């Protein structure tokens, strides 16, 4: 069955410094979600391989976006548990999907393997993705900046852009963040020099693979309708509690 449009599964682990990315991603999802979209955020402990795979199989989302530590051939989630490797037979879970992995090095092997397995597009990093931990997670522009740029891709997909348009918006956001630390209000922040360099590295290693004309969400907001397939409706009801509970998981106070 083709992946379901307007359906997003978002993975937001919170340990091992991943809260620095996950808090920003959660904020971006909340700011950009629209009526008619089904969005499941798996946060903290719920960002485990079993729950994630169940969500993918049940919801069959057109977009999968995940934060997590990674390497050339592996993407991990909460507690650095492996979700997928480049040689796994489960790569087909991502068939027909747009996959955005905010994870180091996966563009070397895992990203191409996902495309070979049928993913329609992939965005990730071919080397180390850097971020700043000089302040508590989520509290300042400095800790949020690298992720504001990176997650513009998924934000744009939520807004109804195509994968190609979302990619352009992501690169543009990188330039905006770089200019904020180079010539903007952040230029005299004590660690502006490092933030500028981190953003340049992340932009330089950012990699897009696959098709650029996929539009996962409608351009205009569409209210939920009764024409949703029954199987999807049943799946949604089953996962409804899961989705509600996941979104409701409180973040640790920073």
């Amino acid at each position: 069955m083709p992946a379901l449009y307007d359906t997003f599964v978002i993975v937001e682990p919170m340990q091992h410094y991943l809260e620095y990315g996950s808090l920003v991603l959660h904020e971006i999802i909340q700011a950009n979600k629209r009526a008619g979209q089904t969005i499941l955020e798996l946060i903290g402990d719920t960002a485990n391989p079993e729950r994630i795979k169940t969500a993918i199989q049940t919801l069959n989302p057109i977009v999968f976006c995940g934060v997590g530590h990674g390497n050339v051939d592996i993407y991990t989630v909460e507690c650095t548990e492996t979700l997928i490797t480049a040689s796994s037979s489960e790569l087909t879970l991502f068939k027909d999907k747009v996959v955005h992995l905010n994870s180091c090095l996966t563009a070397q092997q895992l990203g191409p393997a996902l495309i070979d397995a049928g993913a329609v597009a992939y965005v990730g990093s071919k080397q180390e993705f850097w971020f700043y931990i000089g302040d508590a997670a989520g509290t300042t522009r400095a800790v949020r900046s690298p992720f504001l740029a990176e997650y513009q891709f998924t934000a744009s997909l939520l807004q109804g852009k195509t994968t190609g348009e979302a990619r352009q918006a992501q690169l543009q956001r990188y330039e905006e963040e770089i200019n904020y630390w180079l010539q903007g209000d952040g230029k005299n922040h004590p660690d502006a020099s490092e933030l500028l360099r981190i953003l340049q590295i992340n932009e330089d290693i950012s990699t897009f693979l696959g098709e650029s004309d996929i539009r996962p969400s409608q351009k205009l907001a569409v209210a939920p309708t009764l024409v949703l397939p029954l199987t999807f409706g049943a799946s949604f009801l089953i996962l409804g509690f899961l989705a509600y509970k996941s979104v409701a998981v409180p973040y640790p106070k920073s």
Partner: protein
Amino acid sequence: MTRWFNKLPIAEQDLPLLISDGIAYTPRTALNEVLRNSAVGIKLQQLLESGRFGTTTYEETSVAKTRLRQILSGKPERPMFATMSGKVFTPSQLLQEIEANSEIGQQWVKSEMETMKRIVAVR
């Protein structure tokens, strides 16, 4: 040159950037030479207007490393940088990677050279 200098972040004003006759000039020292209307000041102004540093590739790498040393050596020793592969660095640990020319160090040197281009291009 004065307008360019005033637009730069304060932290960038005293980092080596422009090379003339084998000598590295920071934006501040370059500005002083231009204001004195010296021969080297004219050369530096021409470099800036053409968007170049006046370096060879070797010199560029060397200047980039010097700049990174200057930036990172004065920072407090606490975890400040992390990667999405699970690595965490203090400024001095990151500097060690740069000095060792590791893959991570090379990432930062490459970024520094990009920064130098952006600094010269500020208008």
